[in-house]
């Protein structure tokens, strides 16, 4: 009886609560629907049509078939994987070693930390300009130095030769993204209770043993997350590759995102572009399922 009363008479109280509820959820839901759900649904829809933006003809999954059986699809997929794996692993190694260094509280550690922010914050375009200049075959400083020191006889056009282009793009990417792993790992390192190391020392562990038995286990989760999330981002990377090589030379650096762009705007073949986008969507969804199952990241916010 009193429950009924409480519902009836507490409208006054609930009103403000409801209002706030609306004010916080409506924008959130509306935003997600407008810029994520609808566009993704729209793209998946388009991928089933030929020429979807003009005289759309429903073709079912044939766009997908066309993309998947295209002779270069495997090359693009391979490029994406190669690029994602190499840049992720390298930037993890750079970030990890530097995080270990800065965590030693050396003089200038703070300066080093501030310096590491620059590459990460520098717009991709600027990073490309700088590295295009450094690696330029005619006036680039690296070629100039290498020739001077006698390492190479002829300047190398790093960004425009088939065997070097991917490496050049990868180095540029690692330069920009190495600090991501650095900051996350540094935060984890600094969160390790120093008593653990003191206890290990009292119990007779060497520096190496302490590193292996305390540091590494504490970093394991963060390292896995970095590999996964950074890996996904690098797999999906568009701008850094597009700005440095546009996917060339001869598709040597064409990854799936680059291909999506080409199909959409150089074709234009929106059916094919959205079909490839759909394939990327399902790939990501597959990885996301694993991510959600293994790491349960939503536990951080929803109990």
């Amino acid at each position, binding site marked *: 009886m*009193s*429950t009924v*009363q*409480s519902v009836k*008479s*507490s409208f*006054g*109280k609930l009103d403000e609560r409801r209002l706030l509820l609306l004010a916080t959820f409506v924008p959130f839901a509306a935003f997600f629907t407008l810029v994520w759900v609808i566009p993704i649904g729209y793209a998946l829809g388009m991928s089933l049509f030929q020429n979807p933006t003009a005289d759309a003809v429903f073709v079912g999954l044939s766009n997908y078939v066309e993309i998947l059986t295209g002779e270069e699809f495997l090359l693009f997929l391979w490029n994406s994987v190669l690029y994602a794996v190499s840049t992720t692993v390298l930037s993890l190694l750079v970030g990890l070693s530097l995080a270990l260094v800065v965590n030693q509280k050396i003089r200038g550690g703070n300066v080093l930390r501030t310096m590491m922010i620059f590459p990460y914050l520098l717009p991709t375009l600027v990073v490309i300009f700088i590295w295009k200049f450094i690696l330029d075959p005619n006036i680039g400083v690296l070629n100039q130095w290498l020739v001077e020191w006698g390492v190479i006889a002829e300047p190398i056009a790093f960004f425009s030769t088939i065997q070097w282009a991917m490496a050049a793009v990868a180095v540029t990417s690692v330069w920009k993204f190495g600090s991501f792993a650095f900051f996350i790992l540094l935060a984890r390192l600094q969160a390790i209770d120093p008593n653990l190391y003191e206890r290990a020392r009292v119990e007779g562990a060497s520096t190496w043993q302490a590193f292996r038995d305390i540091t590494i286990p504490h970093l394991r989760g963060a390292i896995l997350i970095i590999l996964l999330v950074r890996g996904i981002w690098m797999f999906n990377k568009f701008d850094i590759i597009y700005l440095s090589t546009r996917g060339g030379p001869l598709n040597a650096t064409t990854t799936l995102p680059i291909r999506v762009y080409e199909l959409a705007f150089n074709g234009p073949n929106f059916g094919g572009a959205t079909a490839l986008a759909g394939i990327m969507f399902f790939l990501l969804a597959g990885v996301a399922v694993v991510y959600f199952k293994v790491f349960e990241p939503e536990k951080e916010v929803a109990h």
Partner: protein
Amino acid sequence: MARAIHLDSIRKEYRTAGSVHVAVDDLSLTIPEGSFTTLVGPSGCGKTTTLRMVAGLETPTSGEIAFGDEDVTDQAPQQRNCAMVFQSIALYPHMTVRQNIGYGLKVQGVPKAERDPKIDEAAETLQITEQLEKMPSELSGGQQQRVALGSAFVQDPDVLLLDEPMSDLDAKLKAELRVEVQRLHQELDATVLYVTHDQTEAMTMSDQVILLNEGRLEQFAPPGELFDYPVSDYVARFIGTPSTNLLPAVVGERDGAYALEGDGFAVSAPADIFADRVGESITVGVRPQYLSSEGGEYELTVVAEVVEQLGTEFVVHGHTPDGTAVDVVSTEFGGVEHGDELRVGFDPADLFVFDAEGQTLCHGDDLTKSPPQSH
């Protein structure tokens, strides 16, 4: 103006994914206006939930709450004229101490010229005048707690609610703040409801104690009564340190005389209570302070395990020959060592007797009154 707090059949459930957790179950009681009442119990017993329902931060699943004659069950916390001191202290980190204390008044539209004298007065009472212009992060834990009390003080609430306000402080600060809280109670015209898991705080500060056990009311009584007349072994063990010793016993009968027979003792028992319980298992409770080396009407053997010194007293943790744990508090046992057998005496007037469910059958004074002539 202080108001009595009436709780009528309060029940609070939390539903999570199919399971229902009952935090408070059928709680009915009246807290007299202007009194200092403590809600005590182990963690998870529902005391904080009860306090939060009084504050209006939680709505009871069923039941009613009234302040005086006014039903406040459905009132928002803003409307109840309560003040609350949180366990986490909950000072606004972006406001100075002065602004923190005065925030409630500001919300109520009291102009600054009127706020300041009140804040100054509160600060003086709580000895934080010098901290008034500082930020909370610059204060020590004890000072922060004083600021929280000051905020309650200036509001002149009808009901002052304190949720384990001292649980994070050290013993010395606790003692100081206990005095402050009681002074606050004297100066304010407010009903104080104080939540703690520390029975010492409950026993020393309050007019009444509400002891909860898994969401249910176990006993609601003044501290002395709780100590001397527990309604169950739960109360007897929760109140007082070390906990009341519980000795298993059986009701025996020999030639029309009844006795509580345990390991090494047989306490004669009145027929009017025990005549129809012959053979039943019961528990005899005796506080460690009431066991003494200087004899008593009955005696008990205790094998010492650990001896702790507390000032002039010694606490012997031991067991009876059959293994029941027994603590003894006395000034006499300084030389006792592990493994020593002690003979300790007790008087029937100090005993509690509980039935197999833990409910009190009788207290010591029932055991000592002259047995009725006829049966």
